[in-house]
């Protein structure tokens, strides 16, 4: 084949790679010092995206009025509803059910299964296909304190420390107490966790863990959990109906002030569908596709923060929406995979982070926020980043070191997905470094919940990445997959129970009218962006 297009590194970048190769032998014996607590604080303040004041603004209406959040999210929270309350006939109910689950990722699927266990009829309405979700993409693993030297209390301490001690203690307690139960549940559903021949779980460290409690399923941990839960949902078609390509675009309420289902939109026909439900669970995941501060993201296509918008409009409070997680190593080259996650394991195996001149500038295993800030400083302040032909900038993650440290073949064995990913674009990461830059990874906050997933708004439950409080200001690797299953199950159970007792009144969209009035009073109605966003728009924009 003649075509070589933009394959591999262009000559300018190769010049820098030569410098990386030149310093490599010496670097193999060098350890860059870790930062002191003072240095960490300082670099976070100066370079972490969460501290860039101009990227945030105060929310002007609603329950979080006066709180700060990124512009992109503020615009949607103050958005204009997509439906006209006067144009929709609520007498015409398309689906009547006990529990409506919005979002078919890990949290939504777990919730549906537990609601069913309570005897509920369940509908899962999801934006794309069932399982097209961030859950499917998690590689690293899931935490649970199930080894002899570990305990839920030790796990508790790690979670609180990781979250900077502002996490909701009741939620953290639920997370760590349920963790072993949840792993056992997944095991009984047939999840293939990595095990020793005698059945002992193979567990390793993750950033911020004091015990090795990261369980994995090769480097497809999230996919294995997601497809198992999905298959289990598919095993109960008589009780659980899945509506794909049918995002919720507004919640419904009844005249008693309870959440009573949602309006869905068929993405293919545009048709609106009215779903009446005795309990509703928002499990819509994160918002990486809002590209806060212009960052590329690791998230799936449907991660547009819709659930936050829907919950906000019925009066639910959001927590920690001023902090997002940026993963330090997103791919910065080639353009085709910009922002894609380069797993933490690469640094875990010994690869150093070096600048355009082949020099180290940060200890490779600082916490995610500190590591990301150091990379940003190197590129932005010190101008020591490497520029790509499309104008991106990044630093080198020196992967070939791994084979030099652990022996030839290690990279191929330990990081097959990564090798495959880069090989598709003519880059051999066993011989050449990868260019990386921080990428938008996780929404630390979300709708404030109680340990049973309830929100204070009758009939509304939230679980998973769409919720906020359990991780405080910073989520540790492996606690999100856990969160998703723990609180998905809890919300599902509570919603299923509620459905047995709840009596619904007449459906209404009065809250939408009231919202429009608030917008008008604040002088925002004319300029408000339509929301929820539902899909990103990349037409003619390359991302």
């Amino acid at each position, binding site marked *: 084949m003649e075509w070589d297009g933009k394959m591999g590194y262009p000559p300018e970048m190769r010049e820098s790679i030569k410098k990386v190769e030149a310093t490599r032998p010496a670097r193999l014996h060098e350890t860059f010092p870790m930062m002191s607590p003072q240095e960490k604080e300082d670099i976070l303040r100066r370079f972490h995206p969460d501290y860039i004041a101009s990227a945030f603004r105060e929310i002007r209406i609603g329950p979080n009025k006066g709180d700060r959040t990124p512009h992109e999210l503020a615009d949607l929270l103050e958005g204009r509803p997509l439906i006209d309350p006067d144009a929709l006939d609520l007498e015409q109910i398309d689906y009547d059910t006990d529990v409506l689950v919005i979002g078919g990722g890990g949290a939504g699927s777990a919730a549906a299964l537990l609601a069913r266990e309570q005897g509920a009829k369940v509908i899962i309405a999801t934006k794309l296909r069932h399982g097209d979700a961030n859950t499917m993409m998690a590689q690293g693993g899931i935490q649970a304190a*199930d080894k002899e030297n570990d305990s839920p209390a030790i796990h508790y301490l790690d979670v609180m420390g990781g979250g900077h001690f502002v996490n909701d203690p009741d939620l953290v307690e639920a997370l760590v107490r349920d963790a072993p139960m949840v792993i056992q549940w997944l095991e009984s559903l047939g999840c293939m966790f990595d095990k020793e021949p005698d059945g002992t779980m193979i567990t390793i460290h993750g950033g911020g863990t004091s015990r090795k409690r990261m369980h994995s399923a090769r480097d*497809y941990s999230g996919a294995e959990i997601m497809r198992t839960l999905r298959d289990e949902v598919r095993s109960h078609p008589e009780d659980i109906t899945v509506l794909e390509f049918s995002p919720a675009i507004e919640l419904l309420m009844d005249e008693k002030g309870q959440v009573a289902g949602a309006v869905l939109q068929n993405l293919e026909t545009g048709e609106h569908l009215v779903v009446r439900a005795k309990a509703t669970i928002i499990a819509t995941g994160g918002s990486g596709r809002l590209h806060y501060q212009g960052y590329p993201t690791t998230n799936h296509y449907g991660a547009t923060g819709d659930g936050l918008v829907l919950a906000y409009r019925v009066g639910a409070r959001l927590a920690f929406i001023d902090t997002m997680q940026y993963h330090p190593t997103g791919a910065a080259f080639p353009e085709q995979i910009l922002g894609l996650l380069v797993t933490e394991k690469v640094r875990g195996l010994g690869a150093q982070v070096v600048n355009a001149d082949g020099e180290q500038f940060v200890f490779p295993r600082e916490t995610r926020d500190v590591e990301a800030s150091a990379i940003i400083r190197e590129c932005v302040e010190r101008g020591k980043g490497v520029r790509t032909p499309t104008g991106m900038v990044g630093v080198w993650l020196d992967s070939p070191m791994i084979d030099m440290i652990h022996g030839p073949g290690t990279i191929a064995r330990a990081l097959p997905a990564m090798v495959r990913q880069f090989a598709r674009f003519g880059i051999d990461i066993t011989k050449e470094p990868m260019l990386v830059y921080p990428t938008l990874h996780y929404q630390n906050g979300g709708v404030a919940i109680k340990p049973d997933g309830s929100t204070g708004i009758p009939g509304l439950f939230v679980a998973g990445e769409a919720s906020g409080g359990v991780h405080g200001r910073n989520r540790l690797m492996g606690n999100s997959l856990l969160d998703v299953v723990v609180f998905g199950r809890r919300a599902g159970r509570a919603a299923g129970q509620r459905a047995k007792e709840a009596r619904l009144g007449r459906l209404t969209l009065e809250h939408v009218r009231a919202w429009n009035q608030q917008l008008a009073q604040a002088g925002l109605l004319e300029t408000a962006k339509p929301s929820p966003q539902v899909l990103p728009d990349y037409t003619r924009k390359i991302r």
Partner: protein
Amino acid sequence: MAEELVPVYIMGKRYDVPPGLTIMKAMEYAGYRLVRGVGCRAGFCGACATVYRLAGDYRLRVGLACQTVVEPGMYLAQIPFYPAPRAQYDITKLQPTFATLVSLYPELLRCLGCGTCTKVCPQELDVKDIMARAMRGDIAGVADKSFDCIMCGMCVSRCPAEEAQYNIFILARRLYGRYIAPRAQHLAKRVQEIEAGLYDQDIQRLKSLSNTELRQLYNSRDIEPE
């Protein structure tokens, strides 16, 4: 830097796009706001299976739209959905045996061993071999070898025997995970301990500490060595 655009044919219609884009980004560049055929955008979800031909080549190729770079003269179409049968079962009531596989998927035995599935798998799995293992009742082998299957459906779309490979594979993996892989004893023990309330006091104590005390405890906690 001025770039030469390359022609690609999306469902037969020509668009000129910058070289080096993935098929997915090329479609977006061409003006498609994707609804079908897109999910994770990173090679994990199997939403974006695409078939294509290259100019002057009779062969039909396949790839994931989010992972495959366009080539000049590429004729492409996405296959975001392909109907495949899925058997109904209750995983708690099955046995991890060949009989289970065949009773739920009797067409398993119709596999011709032609290898078309292996040729089209974008994950480069040896699908034919995995099917052969299934026909031998080697459930552990199927589970192991099919682990990287992203259920994109390409194998199903091309199989002359109308197999539902990926559904057979996930059944095998669940049977393996539930029945064949030894259960984690330490996990069962820990669950019992928690249910017996063994850790309640410890957690309550931590919850009752002041922020400063908790910080001190955190900063002085011992860390299990690598």
